[in-house]
Each structure stands twice: as structure tokens, then as C-alpha cells.
């Protein structure tokens, strides 16, 4: 068996043995999205939708390969190059041998399915067009695979140094800010008077097609070259017009593959990862500087220190603080300054998203609250208190400030929604952290952001949806009650909704931890979330 085959076989066995919760979720969700792309191709072929939407969908699929590793840093490769450091071969040789196995992934399968939409488009145009489409899909997949692998390797490299970590944090914050608020400048052009209740659309109505300039830009990017080749093959364009994008994809993929091999070889040639956290406590760490207070305060202090000392939590803290500021920069120059206070809602959502995996990040340290009388209640409340201090209070203060500065006619609606979102985020994050743990390396084995954490994507999107839904409650209730924009009503509803979320979810979290805490601990000790479901509940 060649070394490449051995690596591929090892990767396949690791994937087969699991744990496969996240992989299974990703496969199902990804295949559903890929089926959507194929459906779009079928509809485009039938003339039901404009083909430019297929261009947009395929480009979006391609973009996920680049954005994924940036948005989810700490996700570990299936085969960690460090395992093979001691093999008696040159690092570059080992990296080359590992390269072939990288194609074995859920992402490759999903993308291959999505890219088969090119065959759907080409099918009516004869065998030559189908052959070009098959080549385009393969070349596009090759390019995207190595784009994703290279992005993950670069992010991993950046996260291993402190300055690099902040560069990565800024990158992710920019992406998040654009994702959450990037549409505002565009909508501000379309509906400039929405803040005053004006619903007159200024630009011509959106046609049933992606604007031509946008489509051209998407086809001009490497993520669109496969479709560009198919487009050339199905029209009267020359052979060169179809061949050029394909050659570009293969050449680009080869360059990215070489980049990945070089980065992996570099990892293989370096000494083992730093075993020290490089964080030291200040003078307050001594007994003389101790704090008073009871169990809740003890947990709150522990949490505050952990947020600033745990590398992954610190990265999340940075995102949650930087991203709303970038969103303000995006929104402030537009005609939609009335929307500025609504950034508070998104800031609360972000605070919840970065705090949604803290139980897993703390790992098996959960044994202590589980074996200390009364500590579970203190643990949940202390986590909430720390969240309020680090996220909730700045969010509310910032929202009030934005209300004052923007003179938004909808300030009360925004503040009411932010109050509700803050309560939901404060109480929802610990609950979902216990319910949906994304288990990675245990806390004692994580000393830098380059170390492995679980993929918290599921929990993050769940808390995003939940907090956003709760945030809408005061506005909807005020509207249904005919309160209009009466500010006392919005504020009272916001406070009531937020308080209800905290009062309702806190006992739920405590009860869940009492009942399933030992199973959660066992799952984290084994690194297998499946144990959480298979274990019987603890006797209380």
C-alpha cells in the first residue's frame, strides 16, 4: 500500500468511526442546499427563473469554502499533520502524500452534487457541452477543495501567533459585519425614506434576474469560472472561451494545492505545538488580592477571568465587541441612520453566538459544579452575570447612545427589541451550551486558538434564530396591541420579555444540568456528543 493510499484509508476510517453528529448534520443540510442548486438549474433550463440566479447560487457555494475556515477557526483537520511528524521522510514528501486524502470529505461530496447542476444546464446542448460541463464541474471542485484547504491552513497559521490571531479576528469581524449589515447600504439606496415611514422605491424594481454587472463579476471570479466555461460551451463561443476558464481553474487549484503542501510541510518541520498558554495572571492572582462574596460571585469572577485568558473565548470576545463597531461604520454613512439603534439587537445576538459553547470549552471541569452542593445554580447564574457584564451592559449602553446620536424615530422599538434580545441571549447561551455542546479538545489541552475546538455552528445558528425571534416579541406585541411607537410600551415590553427569558430559562438550564450533567461530562471526557443522548439521566 502506498503512503497516499494509507493516508486516504486512515482518513476514511476516522470519518467512519465518528463522532459524526456534526458531519451528519452538515451532510444533510449541505445536500439539501445542493439539491436546491440543482433545482435552480432545472428551473433555469425550463426558463422559469433567470440563469443568473444559478450563477449566484454556485458562487455562494464556492464562497463557503473560503469563508468556512475563517468563520470557524479551531475546527481541526481530520488528519492532523502533527501526528506524522516523526515519520522518517522529508516533510514535503509527507505533505504531498497526505494531499490526496484531503479530497475525502463531506464538503467535497456536497459540492460535487451542487456542481452537477452544470450537467443539467449543458444536457440539452449535446454531448460536447455535457463533456465540457463534466470537466468544468471537476475543475471547479478541484479548485474549491484546495481553496478551502489553503484557507484553513493559512487561518491555522495565523491563529498560532498573537498578532496573527488579531488579524484573523478582524477578518472574521469584517465578514460578520458585512453578513449582518452589508445589505443596509444597498437597501438605503432602494428605500431611503423607510425610517420616516416612506416606502417609495427609488431605483427601478428589481428584475427577475441578478443585475448584469453583478453576474459578470461573479463569472469573472474563479468561483464562477466553471459556469463561464459551461456558458461558452452552450453558446456559440469559441473553444478557447470554454477552455480558458477550465485551464484557469486547474492552474489555480494546482497553485493552491502547492500552497497547502508548503504550509503543511512547514507544520511538519516545526517542533511540537507550544505547550504553554503564554498567559500569566497579574498580582491579583495571589491570595492577598482575593474577592469576597458567595458562590455566584465566585463563578462570575471565574468567568470574567476565563473570558480574558481562554484563547478561544478571548477571540469570541473580540468578535463580539469589534463586529458591532464595524456595523456602525457600514450603516452610519447611509440614509438609514435611523437603523443604527437596531445594531444593538445584532450585538446581543453576536454576544450569544460567541458564548454558546462555553460548557464545552471549559470541558471536563464541569465535574466540580456537579460534585459541589448547590454549585449548579451558582454556575448558571454566574455565567449569566458575567455575560451581562461583558456583553449585555455594553450592548444596552451602546444602544442608548445610538438612540441619542441617531435621533431615530424608531429608537423605542429598537431599544425594546434590544432589551428582549439581551435577556434571551444572556439566558439562552448557557442553556444551548449545555444542550448542544460542540466538543473539541478538553480545556487543559487548549493553550492557543490553533488548538482544536468543536464546530459550534449548529448552536450558533440556533441561538441566532432564537434570540432574533425573542427580540421581535416586543415590537410584534406592541403592534398587535395598537401601541404604535409609544416608547413606554416598547420599553416595558422589552424589559418584560428579557426578564421572562432569564427567569424562564435559568431554572431550565439548572434542571437540565442536574439531570444530564454527568452524561454531558462523560461526553466531554470521551469527546463524543453521542454519549449525551445514550446515557440515562442522573438520579436526583
Amino acid at each position: 500500500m502506498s503512503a497516499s493510499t494509507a493516508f486516504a484509508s486512515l482518513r476514511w476510517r476516522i470519518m467512519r468511526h465518528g463522532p459524526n453528529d456534526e458531519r451528519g448534520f452538515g451532510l444533510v443540510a449541505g445536500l439539501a442546499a445542493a439539491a436546491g442548486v440543482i433545482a435552480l438549474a432545472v428551473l433555469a433550463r425550463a426558463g422559469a427563473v433567470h440563469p443568473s440566479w444559478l450563477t449566484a447560487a454556485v458562487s455562494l457555494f464556492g464562497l463557503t469554502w473560503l469563508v468556512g475556515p475563517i468563520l470557524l477557526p479551531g475546527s481541526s483537520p481530520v488528519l492532523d499533520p502533527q501526528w506524522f511528524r516523526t515519520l522518517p521522510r522529508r516533510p514535503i514528501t509527507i505533505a504531498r502524500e497526505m494531499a490526496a486524502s484531503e479530497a475525502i470529505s463531506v464538503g467535497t461530496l456536497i459540492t460535487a452534487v451542487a456542481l452537477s447542476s452544470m450537467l443539467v444546464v449543458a444536457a440539452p446542448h449535446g454531448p460536447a457541452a455535457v463533456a465540457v460541463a463534466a470537466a468544468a464541474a471537476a475543475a471547479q471542485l478541484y479548485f474549491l477543495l484546495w481553496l478551502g484547504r489553503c484557507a484553513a491552513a493559512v487561518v491555522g497559521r495565523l491563529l498560532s501567533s498573537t498578532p496573527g490571531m488579531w488579524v484573523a479576528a478582524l477578518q472574521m469581524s469584517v465578514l460578520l459585519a458585512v453578513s449582518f449589515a452589508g445589505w443596509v447600504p444597498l437597501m438605503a439606496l432602494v428605500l431611503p425614506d423607510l425610517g420616516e415611514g416612506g416606502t417609495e422605491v427609488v431605483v427601478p424594481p428589481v428584475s427577475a434576474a441578478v443585475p448584469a454587472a453583478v453576474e459578470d463579476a461573479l463569472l469573472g471570479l474563479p468561483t464562477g469560472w466553471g459556469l463561464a466555461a459551461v456558458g461558452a460551451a452552450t453558446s456559440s463561443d469559441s473553444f478557447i472561451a470554454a477552455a480558458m476558464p477550465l485551464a484557469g481553474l486547474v492552474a489555480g487549484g494546482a497553485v493552491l494545492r502547492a500552497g497547502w503542501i508548503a504550509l503543511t510541510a512547514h507544520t511538519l518541520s516545526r517542533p511540537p505545538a507550544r505547550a504553554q498558554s503564554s498567559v500569566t495572571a497579574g498580582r491579583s492572582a495571589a491570595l492577598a488580592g482575593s474577592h469576597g462574596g458567595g458562590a455566584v460571585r465566585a463563578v462570575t469572577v471565574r468567568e470574567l477571568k476565563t473570558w480574558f485568558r481562554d484563547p478561544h473565548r478571548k477571540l469570541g470576545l473580540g468578535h463580539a465587541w469589534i463586529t458591532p463597531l464595524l456595523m456602525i461604520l457600514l450603516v452610519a454613512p447611509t440614509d438609514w441612520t435611523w437603523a443604527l439603534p437596531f445594531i444593538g439587537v445584532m450585538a446581543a445576538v453576536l454576544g450569544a453566538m460567541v458564548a454558546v459553547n462555553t460548557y464545552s470549552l471549559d470541558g471536563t471541569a464541569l465535574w466540580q459544579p456537579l460534585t459541589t452542593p448547590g454549585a449548579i445554580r451558582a454556575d448558571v447564574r454566574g455565567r449569566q452575570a458575567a455575560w451581562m457584564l461583558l456583553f449585555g451592559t455594553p450592548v444596552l449602553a451602546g444602544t442608548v447612545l445610538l438612540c441619542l446620536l441617531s435621533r431615530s424615530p424608531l429608537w423605542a422599538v429598537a431599544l425594546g427589541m434590544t432589551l428582549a434580545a439581551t435577556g434571551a441571549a444572556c439566558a439562552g447561551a448557557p442553556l444551548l451550551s449545555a444542550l448542544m455542546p460542540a466538543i473539541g479538545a478538553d480545556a487543559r489541552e487548549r493553550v492557543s486558538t490553533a488548538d482544536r475546538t468543536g464546530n459550534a455552528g449548529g448552536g450558533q445558528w440556533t441561538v441566532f434564530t432564537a434570540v432574533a425571534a425573542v427580540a421581535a416579541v416586543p415590537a410584534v406585541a406592541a403592534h398587535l396591541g395598537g401601541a404604535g411607537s409609544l416608547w413606554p410600551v416598547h420599553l416595558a415590553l422589552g424589559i418584560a420579555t428579557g426578564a421572562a427569558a432569564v427567569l424562564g430559562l435559568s431554572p431550565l438550564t439548572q434542571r437540565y444540568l442536574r439531570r444530564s450533567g454527568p452524561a454531558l461530562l462523560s461526553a466531554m471526557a470521551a469527546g463524543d456528543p453521542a454519549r449525551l443522548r445514550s446515557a440515562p439521566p442522573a438520579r436526583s
Partner: protein
Amino acid sequence: MTAAAPPAVQLSGLTKRFGDRLAVDSIDLTVPAGTFYGIVGPNGAGKSTTLSMIAGLLAPDSGTVRVAGFDAASRREQVLDALGIMLEGLSLPERLTGAELLEYTARLRGIGDGWRTRASDLLEVLELDGAPSTLVVDYSTGMRKKIGLAVALLHRPRVLVLDEPFEAIDPVSARAIDGLLRQYVGGGGTVLLSSHIMDVVERTCERVALIKDGRILTEGTVDEVRAGSTLDDTFVDLVGAAPQRAIGWLA
């Protein structure tokens, strides 16, 4: 006339199964109060599973656990109050220093102002006071064992449950832990520990139980169990030695 103290730990028919594998098979065990008690056995014998059930971190399939006279199923709070726990392979609040961890533990347990003296004593005796700014995540294996012991001891529990306290640590750290445990037992405390290291068990424990395949093979005072031999030889005799044969390609 005073009533006799209840056993520190009493297990009756304790059973735990993981899928098809019977990890603990109807164990009956009594650990008298005030003793230094060792559980020994090969890897996978069920030692850690038994200790986890005593600590309340694993629910038994059947059987009962009593600690200091309290039933673990119905009097959980009292049992947890009576126990000090150090289990192998679990994290601590890793981003705190040793002193911060002890303060946190003291507040969590509601120990009064006396915690400061206790913490100071433990940090000094266990030689952890020389690294006041080092986070627990950066501790060496020995330091980690010692801070784990300090956390377990801080509230002066009636029973200490220690999983492999002497595993993978240097002789100096082992001696520090040994000394502290002897003081604790001398003061009336009970230590229930698991270990692979026979000479440590032989040197420190008064009673010992030998477990294999989830069952107790023998139990008694160290002298009774070793029966004139060494505990190591008795262990190998009861558990069975690995097959010995010459391997040609090694020569």
C-alpha cells in the same frame, strides 16, 4: 457509650454496564472510617468507574452507594458535602491560578473566612506557592495532581476519593502528597484511592481491595492480601501475567 461511626464508604451490589461490557459487577465493599484504603487492579478493571459512581458522576445500573452513612441516591447533598474528589484525566477551571482556584472552590462551597489560612497552608505544603502567576493550564503533571488534591481537601471532607493520585508524578511530588494524606488520615479522615503502583499502596494503605473485570478478587489488610509475599507478586498471581515468549525479530 458512643455509637460507632458509620463506614466511610459502603457499596452494596454496585453494578455498571457500558453496552455489552460489564464494567462493575455487583461489588460489595466497606471502607471503615479513618482508614487509608487502596483499590488496585489492571487497566479496565473497573476502578475508575467505581470511584466515579461513588463521586456521583456516574449513575449505577443497580446497587447502592453510602458515604458517611448517607445514601447517595436520596441524600446527594450530604454525600457531596462529605466527599473530597480528585479524578484522573479531568480538567479544572484551567484559566485560574492555583490561589484563584482555591479561592473559587472555597466560595463555591461556602467555606467561611478560614479558607484563606487553609489555602495558604496547602499551597505552601504542596510547594505550589512558587508560581503565583501561572495558570492551572500551564501546570506540570505533578503540580496538577497537587492542586487537585488541594481542591479536594480544602473543605476538610470526611472522605477523600482519589483516582490515581501517584500516577506519572516525580518522587518529590509523590512524597508531598503522601505526607499530606497521612496527616489527613491521622486526623480522622478516610482516604479511598486507586492506583497501579503497588509499592505505593503497600507503603501507604492499611487495607486494599484487588479488582479485576469489575469484581473484587480479594480484600483485607495489606498484610492479609499479600500473605507473606509482596503486593506486586500477589497482584500478578491473581490477575495473571502476560504471556512470555521469545520474539525472534527483536533479537
